[in-house]
């Protein structure tokens, strides 16, 4: 009897890109739901516009490059990028912010560098950085947490804000003033610069027991999602531990030195994009370091740089720029953290 031949190994692989991406999406669900619950439907609009644009941009680029569209879209990498970007964006952003962001992330940062697996920089973070530098005003429209808006925000007013034309609109502005405020990180940074102490700053209503009101629950939800990913062996523990440790160590050091002018480590870990960054953004396999030791160093450097930008830099949140800058250092980190091969000295 004759047989056709093929090359081994002859066991089906357990893992696939699709499986990895789906688990990341599942792990982001608690965080997304908490975000929507705490900060309103603006987040949902961001998600829908971002993910939808990301998928369409990916399909467009695949068609231009002559690659199979549906099989490639089915690996869900565009969906994950879109979702991560949406969760990083301000909660009441005009519709064109997530739209432009998704286009920059998918087309420029991902496909123009060669597509999945070839981009040196994290797409969501590059898009975020471009947006925050280009549209500083629109990128600072953060909603108040649900606890501080007793009457809630009606969907219709939200729709009118998000989809309003680009020009300034006075009635909308007064509506916005009532439901938006600076983020806890932003508030902390500006007030500290005005020489208030940390304790005085934290008397403001947007601060709560652990960190920012609303933000602390979102951070905890991301933490739970991240631990699920580690338990499922989708991501390793090295990068999240590195990022959180870096941030923790720096903030603990300054906090112990001067508790009145440095916020506590807990505040740093549960504010802004620290948890999202540690578990979901820095762990993007394509742009992170590849060796095991290198990953820990990669995370540590990101944590360190985030603290530096938050405290002494020009922006209240440093995760995005920290990730991009340390992405640049990855080849060097990989070069010097090669494992010792069996049988070699």
């Amino acid at each position: 009897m004759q047989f056709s031949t093929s090359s081994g190994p002859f066991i089906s692989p357990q893992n696939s890109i699709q499986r990895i991406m789906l688990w990341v999406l599942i792990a982001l669900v608690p965080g997304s739901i908490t975000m929507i619950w705490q900060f309103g439907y603006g987040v949902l609009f961001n998600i829908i516009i971002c993910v939808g644009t990301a998928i369409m941009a990916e399909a467009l680029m695949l068609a231009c490059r002559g690659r199979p569209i549906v099989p490639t879209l089915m690996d869900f990498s565009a969906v994950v990028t879109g979702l991560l970007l949406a969760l990083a964006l301000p909660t009441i952003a005009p519709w064109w912010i997530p739209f432009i962001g998704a286009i920059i992330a998918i087309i420029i940062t991902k496909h123009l560098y060669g597509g999945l697996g070839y981009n040196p920089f994290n797409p969501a973070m590059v898009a975020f950085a471009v947006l925050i530098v280009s549209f500083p005003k629109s990128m600072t429209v953060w909603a108040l947490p649900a606890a501080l808006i007793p009457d809630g925000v009606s969907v219709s007013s939200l729709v009118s804000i998000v989809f309003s034309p680009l020009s300034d609109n006075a009635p909308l502005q007064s509506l916005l003033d009532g439901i938006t405020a600076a983020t806890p990180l932003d508030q902390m940074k500006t007030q500290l610069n005005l020489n208030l102490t940390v304790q005085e700053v934290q008397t403001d209503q947007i601060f709560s027991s652990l960190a920012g009101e609303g933000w602390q629950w979102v951070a905890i939800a991301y933490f739970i999602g991240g631990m699920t990913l580690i338990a499922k062996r989708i991501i390793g523990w090295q990068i999240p531990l590195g990022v959180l440790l870096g941030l923790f160590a720096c903030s603990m050091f300054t906090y112990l030195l001067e508790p009145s002018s440095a916020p506590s480590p807990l505040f740093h870990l549960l504010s802004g994009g620290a948890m999202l960054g540690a578990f979901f953004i820095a762990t993007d396999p394509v742009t992170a370091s590849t060796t095991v030791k290198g990953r820990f160093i990669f995370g540590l450097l990101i944590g360190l740089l985030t603290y530096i930008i938050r405290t002494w830099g020009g922006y209240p949140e440093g995760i995005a720029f920290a990730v991009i800058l340390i992405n640049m250092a990855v080849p060097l980190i990989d070069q010097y953290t090669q494992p010792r091969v069996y049988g070699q000295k």
Partner: protein
Amino acid sequence: MSFFSLILLFALLGALLGYAAIRFKVKGNPIVDQIDALLPQTQCGQCSFPGCKPYAQAIANGEAKINQCPPGGDAGIAAIADLLGIEPLPLNEENGVKKEKMLAFIDEQTCIGCKLCIQACPVDAILGAPKQMHTIIESECTGCELCIPPCPVECITMQPIAKTIPLWTWEKPSTPNQGKLS
């Protein structure tokens, strides 16, 4: 004062350099040997030089481009480019194309024992004597084809190398949808 100390310093450095130039002078031109090590030693003359060493010499002197050697192929050009730190060029196909290596074969029925091919072979890969049967030593033949023109009875042909188990290699797996890297 500083003027004089500078003059003194320059004189010292000049003396040091002169001494080093004489003491550590390298015989010959090592770059020629390095280039020659990368050439396939077919000695076929397709590069228009009489052998691989003269071609290496010409490359070192800047008289010849690095893309003249068909048996070396693109891999050879890339290696020489890497050595010299210059951009690789595509193979100059006027000299020939990179072919699968073939070995010369003498048809013993036709050979007249004239010795002309033996004199032509640059690596002494033909065994024979006047009026005695000539034969190609397969393990030494480089496939340069220099023996074919001199033969008056045209009894030499080029044969592809038989695919045996020791020479078999694994095939390169295809990489669909990946595009070329270089």
